[in-house]
């Protein structure tokens, strides 16, 4: 019996259009004159906020989405900021539903759309980033690229089983086109750029 696989490949073979070459790569767009202004605008469009801080004291310098001392449950992928509550002790993803804040380290940020590239270290981290009420993404201010073209030049095709671009809090406009922040995931998102 012919398998579905064989039959589909055979159908595709029969219908194959005349050859058309893959296009040459397009010229790479350049960095805008004021990258940080563009980044701030794009992140604002997406409902997120941009903050700058220094590497050593950022946890004190930034404006937290809620009073830092009242945070009971924190998940963090950063050494500089230990987890707290269920963020530290959770055994299952489901415990993470009570998370107040999730702090993630991104590898770099794309200026044209304010997207931060992040690879969760484990499945639990991915769940934390979605279940927490507030998301904080931390990146080095020097790790920026102009557009998605340069972004993919930095991502090795065989990198990790999962990676994502994150931009702003989760949102929806499914009810009469009104933008609502906090659809299923975080209600706020801050991008913190660190320098020395």
């Amino acid at each position, binding site marked *: 019996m012919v398998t579905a696989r064989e039959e589909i490949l055979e159908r595709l073979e029969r219908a194959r259009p*005349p050859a058309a070459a893959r296009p040459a790569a397009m010229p790479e767009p350049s960095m805008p004159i004021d990258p940080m202004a563009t980044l701030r605008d794009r992140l604002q469009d997406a409902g997120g906020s941009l903050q700058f801080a220094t590497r050593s004291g950022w946890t004190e310098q930034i404006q937290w989405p809620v009073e830092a001392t009242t945070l009971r449950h924190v998940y963090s992928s950063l050494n500089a900021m230990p987890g707290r509550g269920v963020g530290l002790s959770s055994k299952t993803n489901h415990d993470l539903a009570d998370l107040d804040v999730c702090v993630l380290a991104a590898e770099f940020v794309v200026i044209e759309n304010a997207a931060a590239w992040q690879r969760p270290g484990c499945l639990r981290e991915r769940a934390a980033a979605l279940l927490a009420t507030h998301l904080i993404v931390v990146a080095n201010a020097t790790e920026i690229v102009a557009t998605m073209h340069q972004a993919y030049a930095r991502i090795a095709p065989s990198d990790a089983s999962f990676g994502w671009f994150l931009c702003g809090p989760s*949102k*929806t406009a499914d009810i009469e086109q009104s933008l609502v922040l906090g659809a299923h995931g975080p209600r706020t998102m801050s991008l913190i750029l660190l320098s020395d």
Partner: protein
Amino acid sequence: MGHRERAREFVADVDRTRWHDQALWFVRSKRDQAADLVPDWEALRDQASAIKRSALTELPELWREFEEHATAAGTVVHWARDAHEHNEIVAGLLRDRSVRHVVKSKSMLTEECGLNSYLEAEGIEVIDTDLGERIVQLRGEPPSHIVMPAIHLQRAEIGELFAKEMGSAPDLDDPTELTDVARRDLRDRFLKAEAGLTGINFAIAETGGFVVVTNEGNADLGTALPGLHIASVGLEKIIPQQKDLAPFLRLLARSATGQAITTYTSHFRGPRPRSTQELHVVIVDNGRSQLLGRPAFREALGCIRCGACLNTCPVYRRSGGHSYSATIPGPIGSVLETSRDPATHAELPHACSLCGSCTDVCPVRIPLHHQLLAWRGELALSGHHPAWRRFSLNLVAWLFVRPTMYRLLGRFARGIGRRLPPTLREDLLPAWTRQRHLPTIPKSSFRELYRERQRQPKRPRPQAQPRPRHERNG
């Protein structure tokens, strides 16, 4: 009932039609603003369409490459000839693992396959988690738009629905509060689900991975928690290399909603190592290979489902998605659905004014209005036109090859038309003249005017003067 009849029902509510029209035009204008911020926008469209065009010529190689890399990463790859085979594969995976609760993120392919009702018949609960899809699911309707499934509904209707289904206050109509009601309701279902189903926006041959984009995070939440992730993908969704994602992702969200990128752009490549999670990909044909074999229409397979052609279409905006009675409405739907089932959808290529706006906005440059026109021709030849249209077209064709008869009839019509009182004249064409007036009917035809002009003594033509440079460019 065809598109005309259903559209007639929709436009009977004048206020709602205007509201619908404006809601979509608002999205279209956001697309324009976002596109204007990208200096190389047109080059991006060229690039994206060239990648798709070349990918369509090497589908067997690309899918074999995908399969090899996906399998190496621990993903299980399945192949489905048609909708039924797809549904059976998904149901089988769920059955074998005794899954009773499934969360699903937006996937037009699973809509096309009728997966929900198939699984429900097996006693499996399927929850659509995209807010718009959840709304239409609760109403027992199909989505009316491919990106904004509930765009046809007003807030009060959604408030009423939520009051009935989720027990919220009956007069609630604030979008933020309504979204919150749904968020709470769905959170529990996410936590309870044993499997997550998603579509795929782009499958990448080079890595055996794929990309799913959402704003709500529902595809991610639905796949980060349960132990089983099944992703369904149509044969047309493959691109050769990871770096090819750049032009598509730069175009997709901007074309869809005017966002520079969606909130979540997730790259999956196999289940998490050393975890018990399973990842399955179901590759579906369901008529796609057939469309590939039709040179006049195959470019429609390049569609990235951004919805821009719907938002811009004057017919879609004013007739609503449900009037198409097809999984995918709007210009691209009229092409794809007619290809799938010409007998049922023969009227859809006529739900079009041939204004060409869809072709202008399509990020992958699908010549949509040319394809719609080509479909009309094919349907005429294959006898799919209704009798009244066949009759009138035959009449016109008969007349056009008889110049004397044509001229005589023209003179006759002008004579009668000029004598009738204007109001009576317009009453003869009630539908056409509801919102416009007939032009004044001239005394003589173009032919007669031309002949008259030829008889007059020639006047010297004015000498062409070279214009100053700035005027020529302006």
